[in-house]
């Protein structure tokens, strides 16, 4: 691999940058592979990367219908945290977060992981109790979080209005080593490393069918012809239901639009990530200076990658209330992605009813932060044929058994 470094940049500057190689090769598909991964989003690419790195499997193709990283991986608001409540969630998200700490060095690609700290505001008594509980759980899960006072919230993020007339800030759950990363770079960094291991990343190639014999997968049909494989990994987020149907099974997944927006760039005014769940909005400032904003998902199923304005309005309203200074900033751009929601808001990493066909999906509104851990766990499952400890709890059978991993704490209401 052509190493990236400040010296390489300096050297290339002297020869007008003519020496830079392609970041990843563009190859036509071969006849067959040991493993095919469908979907070159972060999760698909990370899966391929760890198949090679951890399990020595490099006869691998990643097949992408559009351009790599163009799905939710390139559309999300890049919050990285692992302060989840339930053990299986905390394990995989913390694995991911800790891999993010060194991923730039591992991939020799600066993904700009910025552990600037993530705080989740408590604005009701009920939320206080919920976050205190999470802090207790995290203390046993090896996840470093703490419950902080409103004053500390204000110190860490001076632009917050902690005495809002409607929902004053009562405290927050703070994860100092949470943060953000550059989403495109995560996809590009993994793609470059995969390509370097000899894997094929085949873009503009849509999988249109799954081939099987005697209940075992044998390959896929694509817009570039049929391709054989011994094992298949489906990692297509919002389109998981579509691929599952091709493979002959159904998923407990709903696909809905989730939107985000950014403001025009301004000089630094916010050093942390803030999530305000009672009013429902969250915000951080990108290195470019844009305020990056997200909120709730649409309430209806949809594949169009466009959402309704209603949610933009709700989100912005919530954030103008929380950060009054943004009122005179302007929304520069809004967009949407199709997220794959399970009933318990936890992912699926699982073998499927079709032999040697595996699926990774259901990350919904929060899977960017999981990319390295999810790739790690999915690769382990595909390589060994059965899930390892990180993935074990996320099998499809949990919906049948009622063994949910509920992070939404959906029915939790205060009296």
């Amino acid at each position: 691999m052509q190493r990236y470094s400040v010296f390489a940049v300096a050297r290339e500057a002297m020869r007008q940058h003519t020496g830079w190689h392609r970041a990843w090769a563009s190859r036509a598909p071969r006849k067959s592979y040991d493993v095919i991964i469908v979907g070159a989003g972060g999760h698909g690419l990370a899966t391929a990367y760890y198949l090679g790195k951890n399990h020595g499997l490099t006869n691998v193709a990643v097949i992408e219908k559009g351009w790599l990283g163009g799905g939710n991986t390139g559309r999300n608001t890049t919050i990285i945290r692992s302060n989840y409540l339930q053990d299986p969630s905390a394990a995989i998200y913390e694995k991911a977060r800790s891999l993010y700490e060194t991923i730039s060095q591992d991939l020799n690609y600066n993904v700009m992981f910025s552990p600037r700290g993530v705080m989740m505001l408590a604005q009701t008594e009920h939320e206080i109790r919920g976050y205190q509980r999470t802090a207790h759980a995290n203390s046993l899960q090896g996840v470093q979080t703490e419950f902080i006072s409103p004053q500390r919230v204000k110190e860490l993020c001076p632009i917050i209005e902690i005495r809002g007339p409607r929902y004053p800030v009562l405290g927050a759950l703070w994860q100092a080593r949470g943060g953000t990363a550059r989403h495109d770079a995560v996809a590009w960094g993994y793609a470059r490393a995969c390509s370097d291991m000899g894997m094929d990343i085949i873009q503009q190639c849509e999988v249109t069918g799954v081939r099987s014999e005697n209940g075992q997968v044998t390959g896929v049909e694509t817009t570039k012809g049929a391709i054989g494989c011994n094992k298949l990994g489906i990692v297509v987020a919002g389109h998981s239901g579509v691929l599952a149907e091709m493979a002959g099974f159904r998923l407990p997944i709903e696909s809905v639009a989730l939107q985000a927006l950014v403001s025009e760039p301004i000089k630094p005014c916010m050093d942390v990530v803030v999530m305000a769940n009672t009013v429902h909005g969250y915000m951080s400032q990108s290195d470019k200076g844009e305020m990056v904003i997200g909120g709730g998902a649409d309430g209806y199923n949809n594949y169009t990658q466009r959402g309704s304005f209603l949610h933009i309005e709700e989100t912005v309203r919530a954030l103008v209330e929380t950060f009054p200074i943004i009122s005179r900033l302007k929304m520069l751009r809004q967009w949407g992605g199709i997220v794959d929601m399970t009933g318990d808001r936890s992912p699926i990493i699982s073998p499927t009813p079709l032999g040697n066909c595996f699926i990774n999906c259901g990350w919904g509104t929060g899977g960017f932060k999981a990319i390295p851990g999810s790739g790690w766990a999915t690769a382990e499952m595909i390589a060994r044929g059965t899930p390892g400890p990180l993935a074990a709890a996320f099998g499809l059978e949990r919906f049948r058994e009622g063994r949910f991993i509920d992070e939404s704490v959906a029915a939790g209401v205060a009296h």
Partner: protein
Amino acid sequence: MSARLPKGGRFLNRSQPIEFSFNGKQLQGFEGDTLASALMANGQQLVGRSFKYHRPRGVVASGAEEPNALVNLGTGRRLEPNQRATTTELFEGLEATSQNHWPSLEFDVGAINARLSRFLPAGFYYKMFMWPRAFWKHVYEPFIRQSAGLGKAPNARDADTYEHFNITVDVLVIGGGIAGLEAARVAGSSGAQVLLIEQTAQWGGRANVDATLIDGADEEHWIEATVDALEDMDNVRLRTRVMGAGVYDHGYVLAYERLCDHDPQDGLPRHRLWKIRARQIVTATGAIERPLSFAGNDLPGVLLASAQRDYLINYGVSAGDRTVIVTNNDDAYRTALMLHNLGLEVKAVIDARAEANGPLPVAAREAGIRVETGKAIAKVKGVARVEGVAICAQVGEGAVLDEIACDVVAMSGGWSPVVHLWSHCGGKLVWDDAQAHFRPDPGKAPIGADGHAFVHTTGAASGLLKSDEILQNAHDAGADAAKAAGHKPKRGKAPTAASPDEAPIEPVWMMPQGAGHELRSKMWLDFQNDVKVSDVQLAAQEGFESVEHTKRYTTLGMATDQGKLSNINGLAILSKSLGADIPAVGTTTFRPPYTPISMGAIAGEARGKLFQPLRRTPMHDWHEANGAHWEPVGHWRRPYAFPRGSETVEQAVQREVKNTREAVGLLDASTLGKILVKGPDAGAFLDLLYTNMVSTLPLGRCRYGLMCSENGFLIDDGVIVRLSEDSWLCHTTTGGADRIHGHMEEWLQTEWWDMQVHTANLTEQYAQIAVVGPDARNVLEALGGDIDLDAETLPFMHWTEGRIGDFDARVFRISFSGELSYEVAVPASQGLAFWNALLKAGEVFGVMPYGTEALHIMRAEKGFIMIGDETDGTVIPQDLGLHWAISKKKADFLSKRAQERDHMTDPDRWQLVGLETVDGSVLPDGAYALAEGRNENGQRNTQGRVTSTYHSPTLGRGIAMGLVLHGPERMGEVLKFTNIGGAPIEARIVSPVFYDPEGKKQNV
């Protein structure tokens, strides 16, 4: 130097001078100026610094497409960063400062980046700053953040207000140029409800500048007459300063009105967000001129040829004294001729085409203007501003043939239709080779729910550039839209216009054609974000082949102008680098808004106290007046406690509990959900909804009921009351009322639609007061009335109705505290009077109001569960020892099947117990019970958790409830609980009922 001409300026009122300041300098303009025109009139050409290299920047455009002239506008509570000077109308006292420099605009240390630019090509930050690892967070990132960003962050609350406005129309026409006016006129003549919006303050668009004869007269006459005609139509609304921001599904359009940006004042909303439902939409949004890519094209003094005309005609401002025009089309000759006619010097027209023989070039030559064909600009000379150009052959590598001194370079690379609004909701584009631009593909318009197109496009926005064609097309578009909206338009004759023939444009994406790296690295594509031709080529070389990849890798088109000037040029360079056709590479996705809109406008009126509706019980004001410490619960506020005198909140809570247990307390329980369920099938319906049997509840009786989701989890609880043969009143939790009502309706409407049941949420119709404590009956009896409250007539879990004192009341004998307790509902209008009556009657018994925390403590002392504390969406009734509330008789109910699943019947599920700390202290909220060892993922094993925990004033010690592995079988065992930052706390497993287990106090 740029300057004001002695005469001219269509928009100006020269009799009305306006004072304003720029970077503290006092300057003068006229009414009608934009900030950009006024700055130019004052000779201020340097207006800002670019994003990455901090290059000096001047005005290049005259409208929303401007990438450079961004300022901090206003100060304090009216500071607005990144305001576009070209769309900022000048007002008295305007204060602007330039952005992104330190220490000053003229001398900016950040400009060092430009010197280092060869080390900072596209994507450089992905390749470096990786070592040492900790440096990213502590050194590199802070540095990058500091030099990035543009405007200043406001640091005060916005002084202005905003509002929303909803409207439904048949036809919405976006754009008030001649195309929009004609389309609106024709649509309006059909009687359809028409709304015509224009983003600027003037009607007529470009036609005014480019002097078109319409119907044989000056275009101005036609425009005026048409606006008058539209104003006379009752069914037509016209609005200026309203920009079409976004087109969404189902004809939903967002428009952004700037009501007083041109005249800031208190009392008026600053912006109004229009939410428009339009049956049909016509986009007549015009076209934007493209820059040309030549070395040094970013220097102040280089601007669009059309913008130069705008400044001359509209504002009487010349961009400089000696202009060189550079073009690949005939349109730019209009600028040459206009300058010439105004007596301004045109040094040369550099035309990249081999020949230029259309009527406009001919006229230019006849006027004595030097025209150089087949030529290009090799390089613009100058450091901080244009001083001259070196010219070369277009076909070649840039060998300099001549140098011309000048202070303005006016460039024209052809026109791109404004296709944004067409594209937002799925309208597709085609590449038009002859005109070298993308235009809407009329066959692939956005499709509505009925399968038909709902967006039309006309005028320059549709790719037409000649007035005559534009008017004809607009006439048809207006008629088509009205027709599609269900009206009968009168198709008449479109107005005619005369426009000279123009020779074809020649696509020129780089000047000169064979420029080497040295030149290419000085050709700007995106002026604000500093993306150059060499950057896009590098992206292609590195395999970022998709246009979306290139955009993201280089940041092309991601600046605040959203690439209005740069997108097509960048795309052309990319396709050339890839050896592909432009249409094969395609455009990036167009996303709303068309130009940035304020967050304030999006939030609208919903700020501060109006942020969300505040629901108030009839006693709310009394609580407020009596010192309630509030707790937000859903949209309600509930008193958490009523501290008295110097009491702390905690002390108040303890007092309230004690007083209620020993004397009598009053709780405002009005927020509890009250849903009436009525109809012949109401009983059967409720049997399906609740886990208990409801239909057999006798008249006059109350029953505690549980509701679970179809996945088996407990979602709500409350007392069900049988009101009559066919009607039940279902109490829900406060937070659950709307959700449970929705849940009922969802099942009724989607699954059990054959059931004859109506539901109504009566929560706000009644004030409900719990009278609780040993003296509860005495207080109520003291009020008199006709209800017999004694234990035999009205036993526990019964209800009755009648009069208490002067009040119509329903009395429920239910208790959530373990005390003798009556919940009394009176009509909401009587709530406060009843509350006061109770306080008065209770005075002798020592009555006191109590809040939610006392309520919580008392229910915990009694071992009653609380939804949201003992439940969290993962808990089933069986976990809480509520087996008795799950019917064994019913054939089916929601959750029945779910609760039979493996995991739900697992004996290892954690079960409800009481917990008592060994030392009497209070367990921390949310603490976990530790178990031996770690799991496979290295996490500590646990065996339970605290669900509620309080200091019990009754018992004088900490009590808690929790879920514990095999809990009920482990009474007396001591567990260790987490205690963040301290040693684990020991607590003993006990019964969850801490107080009066026999129910002696509540059943009296």
